[in-house]
């Protein structure tokens, strides 16, 4: 090659740097996704208006008190159900253990607001239980006392019944990860099963249990359907009432900000316990754990302890829903119900695909440019899962309404055209809110799958002449196909179940299965609500199956039949 030719192809000395989409794009996406939470937090700094003063003097104490009481009750409830069942199925042997191992996860498929109204229908005055009692004893109205299910304690029980699987799941994983050596040493030192549980297994699993507990409490704070239906005044119902009852979005946002600070305490608790959990693995010997064989009354007690949560948290309400749905074919064998289902499935599918694409973009961006800014962006984008749907809805509504109003005013002034509501009154707002809330679900799955692909794969593809964005499509996406599908499914089901954000942000006259369930139940049309509720529950079983498959494979040396 001659010298002139060489000079001609030499790159210029200084070149204008193009903005790097994989860096700035990821950070920008995270910022947009963080917008709702930032908007809500900004309201902490705004001067508090008269409404806020009024709230503080009247209902705020109730909100705080009831929310705390709810958390305390649910906290105790999920620990009492989750930890013992986890210990029984992972370290003891009794009939049906393998079945319970995954059956105990079933209540995850039951949204709290659905179980709440199902039990109301079963335990109310005209319900089957009280009717039966009256028949048996010849009682009439007012002759007897029956516990009121629509109360704070009722809400505690309902939420505990469907949220304990978080504790169960993490505690079970922690018990299984404990090395055989530690437990065997405990046995040789003369500790029986119960002493071993109390002195060795429980302390070792404590960080995992706290993580599960904080997840359950986040869900408790996020719950709207149950407390609204039971008429318990908490933050979430307060936000609704302040916004729609009193017409005060600003004060509602301030309430949301206070709720968020509760959530942040839980996030910190969760992070802290996760960090501690890392130091708890002392030995890596994973063999089939020798299980305590339970006999006699112990066996019966173990069986009862495992049957009850599954029965009360899933089977009974599911049977009741099925019975109701079977008796109300006129409700669901209609074009209207079909449209409802179509709305729900379509919305969930669009959001799920979008959330997974966003997760893919962000996780791959971080892989290409592992700068601190990208790592931080990923963590920020994943925060939404801890934020209650009500808070996100408030945080989406405020800026979107502002943008719509500004745009509309400008268009009117300039072109004399009214654009109306482009963002806030449409599905855009709803899908965006879902993405904010559920991106963490897809992000976790995609990040884990991407992490399993060796960096040399990327390098190999690039040295074969392929640019990074094509490498993602040609190499990573096909390899991760299974995980991407899982992520889509998980987001899909979460969206299907979501209630409060949908209630606030849905376009006028747009209904989903969750909204219809809640509305009918609120109108005391419990049986009519059952078909929509049942559809949600059935969809909810999908992630339970995925989850139980993952955990049965997660432990090295664990027999796959278990």
């Amino acid at each position, binding site marked *: 090659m001659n010298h002139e030719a060489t000079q001609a192809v030499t790159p210029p000395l200084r070149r204008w740097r193009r903005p790097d989409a994989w860096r700035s794009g990821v950070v920008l996406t995270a910022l947009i996704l963080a917008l709702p939470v930032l908007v809500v937090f900004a309201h902490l700094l705004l001067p508090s208006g008269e409404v806020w003063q009024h709230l503080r003097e009247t209902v705020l104490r109730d909100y705080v008190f009831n929310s705390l009481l709810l958390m305390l009750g649910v906290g105790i409830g999920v620990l009492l159900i989750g930890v013992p069942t986890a210990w029984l199925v992972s370290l003891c042997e009794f009939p049906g253990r393998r079945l319970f191992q995954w059956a105990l996860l079933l209540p995850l498929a039951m949204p709290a607001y659905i179980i709440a109204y199902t039990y109301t229908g079963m335990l109310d005055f005209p319900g089957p239980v009280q009717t039966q009692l009256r028949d048996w004893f010849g009682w009439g109205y007012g002759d007897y006392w029956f516990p009121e299910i629509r109360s704070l304690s009722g809400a505690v029980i309902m939420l505990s019944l469907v949220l304990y699987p978080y504790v169960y799941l993490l505690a079970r994983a922690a018990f299984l990860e404990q090395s055989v050596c530690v437990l065997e040493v405990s046995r040789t030192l003369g500790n029986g099963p119960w002493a071993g549980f109390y002195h060795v297994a429980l302390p070792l699993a404590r960080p995992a249990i706290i993580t599960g507990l904080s997840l359950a409490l986040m869900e408790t704070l996020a719950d709207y359907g149950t407390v609204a239906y039971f008429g318990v005044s908490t933050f979430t119902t307060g936000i609704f009432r302040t916004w729609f009852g009193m017409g005060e979005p600003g004060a509602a946002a301030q309430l949301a900000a206070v709720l968020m600070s509760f959530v942040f305490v839980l996030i910190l608790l969760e992070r802290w316990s996760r960090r501690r959990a890392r130091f708890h693995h002392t030995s890596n010997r994973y063999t089939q754990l020798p299980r305590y064989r339970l006999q006699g009354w112990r066996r019966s007690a173990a069986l009862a302890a495992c049957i009850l949560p599954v029965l009360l948290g899933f089977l009974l309400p599911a049977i009741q829903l099925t019975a109701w749905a079977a008796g109300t074919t006129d409700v669901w064998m209609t074009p209207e119900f079909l449209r409802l289902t179509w709305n729900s499935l379509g919305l969930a599918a669009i959001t799920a695909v979008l959330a997974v694409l966003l997760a893919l973009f962000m996780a791959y961006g971080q892989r290409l440019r592992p700068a601190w800014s990208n790592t931080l962006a990923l963590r920020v984008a994943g925060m939404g899962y801890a934020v209650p749907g009500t808070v996100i809805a408030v945080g989406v509504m405020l800026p979107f309404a502002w943008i719509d109003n500004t745009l509309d005013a400008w268009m009117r002034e300039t072109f004399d055209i009214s654009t109306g509501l482009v963002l806030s009154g449409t599905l855009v707002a709803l899908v965006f809110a879902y993405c904010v809330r559920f991106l963490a679900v897809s992000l976790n799955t995609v990040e884990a799958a991407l992490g399993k692909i060796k960096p040399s794969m990327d390098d190999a*593809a690039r040295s074969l002449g*392929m640019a990074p964005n094509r490498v993602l499509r040609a190499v990573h996406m096909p390899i991760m196909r299974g995980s991407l599908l899982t992520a889509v499914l998980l987001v899909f089901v979460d969206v299907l179940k979501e209630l409060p954000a949908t209630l606030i942000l849905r376009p006028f006259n747009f209904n989903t299965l969750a909204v219809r369930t809640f509305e009918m139940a609120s109108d005391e049309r419990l049986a009519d609500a059952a078909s929509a509720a049942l559809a949600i529950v059935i969809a909810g079983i999908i992630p339970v199956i995925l989850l139980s498959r993952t955990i049965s494979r997660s432990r090295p040396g664990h027999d796959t039949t278990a």
Partner: protein
Amino acid sequence: MTQLLEVDNVDVAYGATTVVHQVSLELRKGLIGCLLGPSGCGKTTLLRAIAGFEPISAGEIRLDGTVVSRPDWTTAPERRQVGMVFQDFALFPHLSVAENIGFGIRHLSAREREARVTELLKLVGLPTYGNNYPHALSGGQQQRIALARAMAPRPRLLLLDEPFSSMDVELREELAREVRRILKQEQITAILVTHDQMEAFAMADRIGVVNAGRILQWDTAYNLYHRPGERFVADFIGQGKLLPGAVLNEHQVETELGIITGLVPKGCDIGDPVDVLVRPDDIRPDDQSHISGEVLDKAFRGASFLYTLRLASGGKVLCYAPSHDNFAVGERIGLKLAFNHLVIFPRA
């Protein structure tokens, strides 16, 4: 004639740590070069800089005379036409062997692509494996497919990053010779990175000994062994001991073993204290000799023994002797000099 690859005073840094210092090397078209050094010496980083995966912080890298790396410029790896074979092979698990090989030649027509894949499969000796998937192949087979895949687009330069390190030790040298045959047949210019000198000797035309981010010597295997330019090279390549001596004149050095003749490098004055490199094949047992050493240790190598000997002064040397002379540990044996190359390092 222009060199195919020119690495010109290159630094590579991770943050504040410079891991490659002032490296220069040149490689002509058709030659196989090798970066040889202990693990962590920076050889893989240098290779990745040549491939375009790591930006450089000083100097310049040119391919065919074109600048591809400069502190303010890194041509993307996918635009360099530089192929790479990875330590873990990095075969795409979701693609068949044929699809893996065809990955880099997507721009060709289906027929041309198929012809090239068939040709390469034949070249690496696995003509019937096109429809298999990587996980069904043995390590050696994966290795060959990885090589075929990297060669498919006819890269200007092929880089091999420790390509034999996951192979059985017995297979490595054989595979290295096999790869050399293939590369030479296809007239491919290549650079190999390895820590195993037998691999380097079996494959490379030029070897650079790398230590602490620097190339100490860029030379043929023969010269690295017999004309090491630095103590590290003398120590790292082959076996040998340094024996103290003094310069007598321009072509003689006096040591405990006697006077050794050779070319004394310029800059050494008469009487200067020096260290003389004594390779195991530089001395032979000789019953007639008045110089002797005591056997400290012996290692059986089949055709020969490698003896470690202690001289009268306490200095140690190594000596290869045919294995029918079986001396016992503690025995004294007479020694004869058989130097062809005099290698001396001035003592500080």
